[in-house]
């Protein structure tokens, strides 16, 4: 495969190949490997990857017609590479961000100084769909509410990495990140070795340590459980995977109960056993039918009582969603300055708040060049992409913004970077994003890399696996000094 034949898209940033058609510095081993490979050998690796996915049973679940349908995990064999030096900076930026977000959540439910000091307008919190009055006055251990965060990063045309959003509610994808590495190890072990790829498989033990650190009981082995909505959930594979890797019980709501002493117990063959920490993978509204949705069959009646009494830790804590909101997002750089007295290391994508009259005016005048997002939807739902929509929908959007400005924010269209992807016997650029996972408990931690999602359809920016997106292994490669010097000389 000659990289000269790799057709870059004009004006976009490709992560492996420069506009002049040369491999980027530091990624020489991968470029060399691709140059030496022919279609047959890459197809062979592709087949090996597909076989591994099949026998390892790596799947995501789609529920339809009353049945679980397992789709095999879509994986592209060409890894996406990032220099270690750049990664270290991103890593500190991610830790900084989660620290500030946790300070913000503590503040929102206790005192609200950030509002009193005029940094964040008060109505943003009052009107947030995910503000939970039940959490007022709570101080979880270490003042950490969001213990697990999946932050979406994108790279613009000039190479700058931006934060697109912070997923604090129940971020998923980490199991696929780990399985992608397993597949790479099977199909290109020598390349991993030559690039000195940073390992990432300590995530489950780091997660377990984080969860143990927030146990209310100071005992050597606290009882940690992972609460899943069950097999019908699309992320069930991940729930089972993580429970197994951490060696904790995978429980459903019906396996737990809150007794009259306000402690949480799980039902075992030996009788009830006390639970210290719940890593929940269900949304707030389903957690406790006594407090939130009464029709929830997934939750545990009385769970909020036990949590408020400090008898059980819940990760992420109830009420974190208040900081996972597209409008609150725009204030994160301000939060970093306010709580940590630091400058933000990672920039936000420039955003316009429709609640601000001047910014709203700008949005309405430039609607066709912008992306408009509803404040508290996730997974790309309800998004408006200016250049692509019909006149009719644009008019409707305009009316909705005027009617309910708090619900919307707008951003310029970012040209996501591309990575060579093996499609129909050739290397073709496809758009990618990146979701690293950040942990915060007694200590904090960032995965070495993250889940790279790739839009497999040419020109598409949609990376969701349910909508034709795929994934790639992400390699943080040790900076190769010799190679860098050789280029300069």
């Amino acid at each position, binding site marked *: 495969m000659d990289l000269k034949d790799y057709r870059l898209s004009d004006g976009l940033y490709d992560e492996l190949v420069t506009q002049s058609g040369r491999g980027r510095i530091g990624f020489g081993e991968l470029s060399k490997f691709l140059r030496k490979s022919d279609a047959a050998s890459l197809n062979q690796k592709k087949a090996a990857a597909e076989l591994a996915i*099949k026998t390892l*049973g790596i799947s995501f679940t789609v529920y339809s017609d009353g049945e679980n349908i397992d789709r095999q995990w879509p994986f592209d064999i060409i890894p996406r590479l990032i220099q270690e030096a750049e990664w270290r900076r991103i890593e500190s930026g991610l830790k900084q961000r989660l620290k500030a977000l946790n300070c913000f959540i503590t503040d929102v439910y206790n005192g609200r100084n950030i509002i009193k000091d005029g940094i964040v307008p008060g109505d943003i919190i009052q009107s947030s769909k995910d503000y939970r009055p039940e959490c007022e006055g709570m101080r979880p251990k270490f003042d950490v509410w969001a213990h697990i965060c999946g932050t979406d990063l994108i790279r613009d045309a000039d190479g700058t990495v931006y934060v697109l959003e912070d997923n604090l509610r129940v971020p998923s994808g980490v199991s696929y990140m780990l399985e992608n590495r397993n597949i790479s190890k099977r199909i290109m072990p020598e390349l991993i070795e030559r690039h000195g790829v940073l390992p990432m498989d300590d995530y489950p033990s780091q997660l377990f340590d984080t969860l143990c650190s927030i146990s209310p009981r100071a005992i050597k082995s606290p009882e940690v459980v992972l609460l899943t909505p069950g097999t019908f959930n699309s992320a069930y594979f991940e729930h*089972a995977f993580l429970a197994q890797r951490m060696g904790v019980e995978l*429980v459903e709501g019906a396996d737990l109960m809150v007794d009259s002493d306000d402690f949480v117990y799980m*039902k*075992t063959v*030996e*009788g009830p056993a006390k639970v210290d920490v719940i890593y929940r993978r269900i949304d707030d509204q389903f957690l406790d039918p006594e407090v939130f949705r009464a029709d929830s069959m997934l939750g545990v009646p009385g769970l909020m009582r036990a949590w408020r009494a400090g008898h059980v830790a819940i990760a992420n804590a109830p009420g974190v969603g208040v900081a996972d909101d597209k409008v609150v997002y725009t204030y994160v750089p301000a939060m970093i300055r306010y709580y940590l007295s630091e400058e933000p290391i990672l920039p936000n994508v420039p955003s316009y708040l429709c609640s601000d009259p001047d910014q709203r005016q700008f949005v309405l005048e430039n609607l066709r060049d912008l992306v408009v997002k509803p404040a508290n939807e996730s997974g790309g739902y309800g998004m408006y992409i200016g250049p692509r929509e019909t006149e009719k929908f644009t008019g409707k959007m305009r009316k909705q913004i005027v009617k309910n400005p708090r619900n919307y924010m707008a951003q310029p269209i970012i040209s996501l970077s591309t990575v060579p992807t093996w499609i129909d016997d050739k290397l073709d650029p496809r758009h990618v994003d990146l979701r690293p996972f950040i942990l915060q408990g007694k200590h904090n931690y960032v995965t070495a890399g993250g889940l790279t999602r790739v839009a497999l359809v040419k020109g598409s920016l949609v990376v969701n696996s349910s909508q034709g997106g795929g994934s790639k292994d992400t390699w943080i490669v040790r900076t190769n000094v010799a190679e860098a010097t050789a280029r300069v000389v």
Partner: protein
Amino acid sequence: MLSRVAERLYWFGRYMERTENIARLIAVYSNLLLDLPKSAFIWDSLVKITGFESEFEDRFAAASERNVVKFLFDDPSCSLRATTRQARENARTTRDLMPNEVWEKMNELHYLLAADVSKCINRNRRHTFLSEIIDLCLELNGYLNGSMSRKSPYYFLKLGRNIERADMTTRVIDVACLNLIGLTKIQEAQDNILWMGVLQSLNAHQMYRQQVQDRINDVDVVDFLLKDEHFPRSVGYCISDVTRSIKHLPNNTLALRAARRVKRITTKVSTDVLLDSEQLHASIDDIQEKLSAVHSSLLQSWFRTS
């Protein structure tokens, strides 16, 4: 361990055992067919063994070879595909307790059964196909036996396997007796073939031969399959093993009592009863009823405690 997980492991054990049994039944009956007169009743018997006659009749007019094999391949009630799917759904939620290879084998089995039904209907390919299924089941059991700690999860799995096995053995005996009641005119040579088929369908032929020196006859076969203490598919052995598993579990009084009851009535079946098909049928009914009482005792003691 979680009560729900214990229950799912138990069902996983049952469904895996059922898959293996159905595959073996089809294989053995396909062979038997070659040795019996064309009008023989054997395909009808297979449906009877599963206990899903009405589901079969809803779908097919006649118990022809093709129809029965198709039914046992893909019907939602009791087919290879259905039992594997059930086993896999139970494994999905308990896989963290079993060796990783079990889940891999489970997936292999699942994909194998996603194959076209013709693989099973076509007589030339049937044998290979069924052997593949049986081999996968055995490999899977090998991983369970070889690398699972002897703790509660293992015992629940084993309980499922042995209760299912005991149940299947009683069904095979029962249907064989029913066939004999209706068909007195069958010749002695065929009678012999039939009982050999019964032994083979439970993989018992060789061990029976080593145990019983006399020529194959109904009384000895049924006695062996009901009471033998050493053959792993005889009802007697299965129940002893169920009792051993129960002894390793906490709060076991109720279940232990239920298992001992099955043991007692199985041992009590006399030669007189064995000689009379109708009396035997009644005894087997009784054993099956007590077996299902063991199942209920598991629910009460461990799975659905309130």
